């Protein structure tokens, strides 16, 4: 029985040579995805990986699953069709910040709103790589790129904020350099029934090198990021002595044992709380005054689209019980010519 079969990352690799630039963060991410899939244990032939266009969207070619490299921005709509047509499949969508949030922004917010059971891997390098270096919807204000030679004069999207605006039920974040965390959030996304968005901050060595180094560099990472785990205290720092507390309506990073703060003051992460206010505050922490949140920030049970669709079809079929189109037609207004 394949249900009892166990898989290794190797089972999810294709025979294709990986063509991303040497040093690109995508290499680590595809490895993490294959590891996560092995951990989840759904067979490669019951897994479909759908992408749009961009460097990250080449990923399906490197997977030993069913895959579809589609058109710019439309991965979400196509993945939705795959999942709706066959809810038995585990569907992954792979996208970048341009593909997902610019040209595909409409599909993205609607698949999240619909809460369709797709695992969405959003690789955010804050730049267009495949078209060679234009600013994306997540590029920081003022950034000089090929299409903004004097700096951008617009604010970026923060993907988490869009997800919460679209009433998302799952949001998690990782860094390309944190393989274990990436595997962890991807596996959690697969376990979540509904649209599960995993943002992985990824480095583009060619066009946006070190854009995430402020939080991702080894020397600073422990102090500028926090790994959230459901049911655990929000603690971070090299010494593991820093914590997140509530200060009025705001979050604050404190040192335990200083200024009168004790471990009791430190918040416990509740990813399952339907109310998203605290999740949003956590997701908006950016590594400056407050550490950037990694791990599963929100993971809430809610009705998901495909289960509801299947349920409704079965419910209506149960009531009417037509065996064929002809039987249905004959149940309506007809007359006989003899």
């Amino acid at each position: 029985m394949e249900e009892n079969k166990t898989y290794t990352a190797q089972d999810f690799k294709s025979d294709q040579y990986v063509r991303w630039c040497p040093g690109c963060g995508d290499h680590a991410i595809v490895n993490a995805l294959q590891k996560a899939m092995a951990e989840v244990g759904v067979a490669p032939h019951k897994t479909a990986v759908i992408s749009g266009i961009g460097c990250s969207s080449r990923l399906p070619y490197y997977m030993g699953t069913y895959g579809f490299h589609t058109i710019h921005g439309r991965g979400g709509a196509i993945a939705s069709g795959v999942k709706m047509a066959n809810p038995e499949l585990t569907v992954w969508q792979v996208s970048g910040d341009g593909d997902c949030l610019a040209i595909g922004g409409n599909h993205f917010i609607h698949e999240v709103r619909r809460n369709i059971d797709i695992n969405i891997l959003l690789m955010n390098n804050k730049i267009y790589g495949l078209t060679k270096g234009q600013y994306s919807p997540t590029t920081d204000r003022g950034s000089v790129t090929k299409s903004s030679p004097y700096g951008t004069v617009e604010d970026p999207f923060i993907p988490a904020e869009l997800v919460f605006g679209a009433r998302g039920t799952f949001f998690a974040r990782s860094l390309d350099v944190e393989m274990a965390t990436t595997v962890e959030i991807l596996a959690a996304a697969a376990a979540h029934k509904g649209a599960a968005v995993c943002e992985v901050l990824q480095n583009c060595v060619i066009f946006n090198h070190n854009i995430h180094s402020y939080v991702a560099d080894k020397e600073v990472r422990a102090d500028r990021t926090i790994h959230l785990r459901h049911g655990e205290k929000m603690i971070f720092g090299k010494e593991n002595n820093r914590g997140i507390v509530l200060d009025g309506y705001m979050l604050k990073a404190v040192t335990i044992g200083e200024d009168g703060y004790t471990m009791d003051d430190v918040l416990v992460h509740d990813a399952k709380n339907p109310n998203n206010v605290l999740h949003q505050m956590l997701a908006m922490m950016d590594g400056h005054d407050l550490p950037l949140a990694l791990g599963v920030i929100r993971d809430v049970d809610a009705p998901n689209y495909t289960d509801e669709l299947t349920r409704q079809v079965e419910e209506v079929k149960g009531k009417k019980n037509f065996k064929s189109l002809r039987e249905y037609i004959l149940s309506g207004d007809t007359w006989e010519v003899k």
Partner: protein
Amino acid sequence: MTESTKVKVLEKVVVRFSGDSGDGMQLAGNIFSAISAAIGNEISTFPDYPAEIRAPQGTLSGVSGFQVHIGKGVYTPGDKADVLVAMNPAALKTQIQFLKKGGVVIIDTDSFKEADLKKALYETDDAIAELGIDPAQVMSVAITTLTKESLADSGLDVKSIVRCKNIFALGLVCWLFDRPVSQAGNMLSHKFAKKPTIAEANVKVLNDGYNYGNNIHASVSTYRVESASVRKGIYTDLNGNTATAWGLIAAAEKAGLPLFLGSYPITPATDILHELAKRKDLGVKAVQMEDEIAGACSAIGAAFAGNLAATSTSGPGLALKSEAIGLAVMAELPLVVIDVQRGGPSTGLPTKTEQTDLLQALYGRNGESPVVVVAASTPANCYDMAFNAAKIALEHMTPVILLTDGFIANGSTAWRVPEEDEYPEIRPNYVKPEMLAEGWKPYMRNPETQVRYWAVPGMEGFMHRLGGLEKDAKTSAISTDPANHAVMVAARQAKIDNVAKEIPQLEVLGNPDSDLLVVGWGGTYGHLYSAVTEMCNEGKDVAMIHFNYINPLPSNAEEIIRRYKKVVVCELNNGQFASYLAGKIPGVEFLRYNKVEGQPFSSAELVEHFTQLIEK
């Protein structure tokens, strides 16, 4: 019927019901056509709605019409009406243009008061005289008053009573055309089954309307309409959009696949989405996506996942779906795209009909991107062509664009419910398990048809990656090799060309031994065939061919066309099919008869034009 009544025998007759949008004229018209069909008439109907959803009552923009053509040899809803029912002055003013010379007008005198005339922008207090209508043609009936009297004891409030006036008018028309009023009564009881008081009231006014005609207007001529010798079977009233939806369901049943529709609301195609959304009782998944692009893309996803997948739209939506259709061409996935054409460009005339999307369907994509293009010719034919489009898509792994139009989509006809074995089996070109050992690749093709084999996610061992990038013909890996690209372009074209081997040959209609060949495609069939039949009956020789298959063309198209001295291509655009044919069949002079007014042809204008062509 009293003895003094004069009875005229007619082969066919056209009745146009008109009134305020809220007057229920479509219900009256629908019942009239259904009971006519039930007694053996052929029927064809067409609704004419205002563009506004709820225009102010009694105004010119709020008029809605419903035209019914009944009798023998009925192929269209009729150019003009023999009888016009106008429930108010606005209806009379806007609809009188659709009345034949000498036709009968029935008006509700209760709604021709000063205020009503003012709302409809009359300048005098005599609407009949102002519009130059001969009073002898007019049957003036106090329909509202008579309805109130009829239902005085019904216990209904005045508003509900007045709402029944359309059915009084229907009763009167039933008398005029000697329709079985009891059948109309049954239909009303069925329609209002959940509201017995309303049902009872409607049946009463129906009978009172009928009796009123019988008693009061005994001196007016009534009509007997000839029955057609229609094929035995069970019939239902069917419009083009419902037929399209049902044809897809029938195809899904034949293919043994679930049916998926990804769509987005757009006039005049939305009723396909409505119908399929209701058919969850048959397991159909019809999904309203966030935009046109997502409609097409979700369908492509569903096709990839192994469903019979379709997307429905109209011209502007087809433009938005172009890139996605190109992906389906490249990925070689089965996809049915339905374009219910309307007046364009841009938003154009959403509620009006045209055939102006033909070249968009054929060529509106980047790259060498051939697809199969087919067109439905009548409301009932939408069923067949939706079925055939799905069959071709599934068996040839290609997008198929089905062109219908606003005229046949909303028009309806009596349709014999087919037995399931009347339609062929559908056999998608699936991979076979033994192919794995033979080194199967996703773009491996059947050497005869050039169709690639379909491996559906969930099948063990056949995991593969598709995509919009060009693939190597042998390995199916991404390839930018120039020679390989040429090979793949040719293979995709050959695959479409091969479909010609399976589509039906053209049949020459009218009189094949003529000098003039009339050529049409799609929704103009009824008007063209009416015109050609009428001319042949009068001894004027005209031949006709009508295309349901545009790309590829039926294999005998060229041979037939070259046989005729004069060939005139008639279409509701500026000559798109004519220019397409000219490219395919060089050296033939294609005359053109075009109309781009958002309206169908009239048979009369066609007869006039063809007569000129013959005599020239």
